[in-house]
């Protein structure tokens, strides 16, 4: 009880609120810049938190982490350039909506959904940290493999018009994911002797090239076209009641998916955003709107990537094991303060634990306030002529690719992906399945092989492992549902035709 009161005292002190606000503003900017994400943001912040004391420094880090997960959507929506890997799914519908002149609406959906997701993840962390931690232990390699397969079944949903083209792109992405040091044998594969490729094709370079540079090239090509007309009045922050009614379901499902996936080590916002989008789409009465500026196509992934923050803190607090690179940095910061994360923190430093628990929720609210300050400014970006936007995208793309590892190699690679993405757009191939397959390819492959190593080659492990069985069944359902629907639609049509032929009236 003392711990709770103490922690609230810290959070609502002047310095507590100050670090939360500074963290949120920094996070939004860092998230919005492509290439810079929450983990780089935190590592830059660490040296400045030495003198703050553990509670304040944790508050600042959580605030930056949360807001960076949101900030990635800003450039995704405005420039089709996901600022973070977790905003990749948002770019599809967010950018489509912005091009329709509804940038302001898209940003307010993403801000609201991010806040809802963040608060949901924070509440789950506060109320259920201990029981949820056991979830992280249930997943063995077979389980992770099955989760990855489940994620891959959403390729169909990302394919736009042609499933065949979508599958071609997914196969290309899976092939790219095999580049790098073999996760089991430890030897380099398909690296062409380039040590820059040992860790695999840098995902952000592919992401920025495929999404952003390709779009900039298309813009430059079409520069004769007039600047987009802004139909929307710029500057309002609040979502209309109608939008709430339209999106609350996908916000909720996105929040649950994000929280649960965030708990799993190695699975963060970058995977949760796709799963949440696919789930929302499968449940949506208007799945055909996805890809053309669906509000739910923004709300679901944005709620999910912010909900992963609360989820990722679960294993950190309950087990003392960081589940993501970002939380690993937070462990480093705690150690700097002479503290070691884990269940013993609840007795050793209860006020710190409660500061983290309440801070996660309050950071989301602060993010909402900070984000609404930016919003009118951001939406104005869309009023700029395409030529200016295209140049801006290219500048940020180069900057972001370089920031990954300070290597010019990544910049060249990113530009190469940009050309590939441009050609794909010309030929009407969807780029999203490549990105999805790259994210999931490593997860699927490494866990498939680890599972077989540990079962000594027995394939039954994928069926006897309950988590694996569950997700493989879900994958089947996900694959068969569209087929089933198509069959039914055809049957219904046939009945209509028959009825028409027989001249019967309904």
């Amino acid at each position, binding site marked *: 009880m003392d711990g709770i009161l103490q922690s609230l005292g810290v959070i609502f002190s002047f310095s507590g609120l100050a670090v939360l606000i500074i963290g949120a503003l920094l996070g939004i900017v860092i998230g919005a810049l492509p290439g810079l994400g929450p983990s780089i943001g935190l590592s830059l912040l660490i040296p400045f938190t030495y003198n703050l004391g553990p509670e304040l420094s944790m508050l600042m880090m959580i605030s930056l982490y949360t807001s960076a997960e949101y900030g990635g959507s800003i450039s995704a929506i405005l420039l089709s350039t996901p600022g973070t890997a977790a905003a990749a799914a948002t770019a599809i519908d967010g950018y489509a909506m912005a091009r329709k002149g509804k940038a302001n609406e898209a940003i307010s959906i993403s801000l609201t959904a991010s806040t809802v997701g963040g608060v949901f993840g924070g509440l789950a962390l506060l109320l259920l940290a201990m029981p949820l931690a056991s979830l992280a232990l249930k997943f063995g390699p077979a389980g992770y493999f099955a989760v990855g397969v489940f994620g891959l079944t959403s390729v169909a949903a990302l394919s736009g018009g042609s499933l065949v083209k979508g599958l071609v792109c997914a196969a290309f992405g899976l092939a790219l994911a095999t580049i790098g040091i073999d996760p089991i044998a430890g030897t380099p594969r398909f690296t062409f002797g380039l040590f820059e490729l040992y860790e695999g094709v840098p995902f952000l370079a592919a992401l920025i090239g495929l999404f952003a540079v390709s779009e900039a090239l298309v813009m430059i090509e079409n520069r004769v076209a007039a600047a987009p007309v802004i139909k929307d009045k710029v500057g309002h922050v609040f979502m209309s009641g109608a939008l709430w009614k339209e999106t609350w379901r996908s916000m909720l499902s996105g929040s649950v998916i994000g929280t649960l996936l965030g708990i799993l080590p*190695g699975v963060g916002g970058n995977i949760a955003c796709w799963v949440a989008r696919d789930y929302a789409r499968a449940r949506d009465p208007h799945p055909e709107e996805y890809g053309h500026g669906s509000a739910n196509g923004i709300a679901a992934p944005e709620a999910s990537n912010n909900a992963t923050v609360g989820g990722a803190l679960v294993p950190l607090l309950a*087990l003392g094991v960081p589940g993501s690179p970002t939380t*690993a940095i937070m462990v480093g910061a705690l150690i*700097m303060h002479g503290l070691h994360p884990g269940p013993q923190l609840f007795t050793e430093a209860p006020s710190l634990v409660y500061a983290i628990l309440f801070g996660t929720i309050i950071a989301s609210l602060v993010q909402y306030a900070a984000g609404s300050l930016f919003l009118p400014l951001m939406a104005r970006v869309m009023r700029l002529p395409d030529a200016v936007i295209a140049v801006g995208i290219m500048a940020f793309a180069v900057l972001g690719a370089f920031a990954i590892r300070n290597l010019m190699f990544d910049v060249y690679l990113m530009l190469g992906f940009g050309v590939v993405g441009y050609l794909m757009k010309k030929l009407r191939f969807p780029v999203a399945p490549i990105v999805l397959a790259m994210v999931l390819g490593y997860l699927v492959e490494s866990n498939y092989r680890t599972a077989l190593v540990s079962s000594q080659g027995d394939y039954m492990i994928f069926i006897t492992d309950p988590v694996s069985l569950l997700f493989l069944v879900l994958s089947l359902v996900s694959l068969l549902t569209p087929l089933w629907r198509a069959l039914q639609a055809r049957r219904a049509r046939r009945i209509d035709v028959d009825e028409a032929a027989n001249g019967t009236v309904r």
Partner: protein
Amino acid sequence: MTINRRTFGTRMAGAALGLALALSSVALPAPAMAAGFPEKSVTLVVWAGAGGALDTYGRKLAELLEKESGWSVKVDNRPGGSGAVGVSQIMTQPADGYNILVFTGTLTFGIAQGLIPFELKDFRMLRAMQSEPSSLAVLSDSPFKSVDDFVKYMKENPSGLKVGGHAPGGFHQYMLYQLMKSGGFESGWIPHDASGKVTLALLGKHIDAAMMTPSTGLAQVKNGDIKLLGVSTDKRSEFLPDVPTFKEQGYDIEGAVWRGIAVKAGTPDDVVTSIQAAVDKVTASADWKKFQTEQFQDSPNWNEEEFTKRAESDLSSQLEFLKANGYAQ
């Protein structure tokens, strides 16, 4: 030209970020110094990304070199290529001591596997400043009470347990290989791509035993969920006084992952002497000792001669291990 472009890029990043990057990486004005090394700001090239254990060490070293020795230091993270990116970075710079590599014991694995296209003689290994052992870990409800129990079971049931740890063909698997040779048993290896996942795999019973750095599962070791059967230090670790070493239990195994600094071969002796003197001031400081204790790090403090000898012997025995397990030709 390349250098110019890099500097330009760094500036762009700094400008875009505004504050953090600029403040942490741009040199502060150096205090008045005696003539000699360093006359300008020194770069610590960390071959891992920001935020990890190596980066934490590199940044503490930078901070204390500034505080204790009056240097101006900037930290340059060069992750990638199993360390090859960071190594190449110092190898393309002049051998003047202004680019110091901050690296780990995986250097010898990288060289042995052909991942890092350099040899030990391309470096002057100046100082090993941190080290952490490996340990054989099981869950507390495991029937094994000692390394002997484990070895006996594995002899009777070859590959009968799922044993795993961080990375394929890395330090922890190498220590298991030593134990296999010393105890005369066979075991498979289930690699994990992050050390945190090893702890979770053990707690979730996806593996039966792990070779891992004790600090990885510290919370569980302390509360008794995870039991350490043996640790690969020479004498009992001051952080784990209750855990017996492998040596005590009759298995002649000793090894540690070290973290340290090196410069390019050909760096003049007087420069190296200045660096050594500056590092001596760091290791003697109370701040450094406090940091080492908080991080659960042993302080080998090997000097150049000992460090080099150690790396050479590591390299030859690891090469044998890697060949035996098909990780190298």
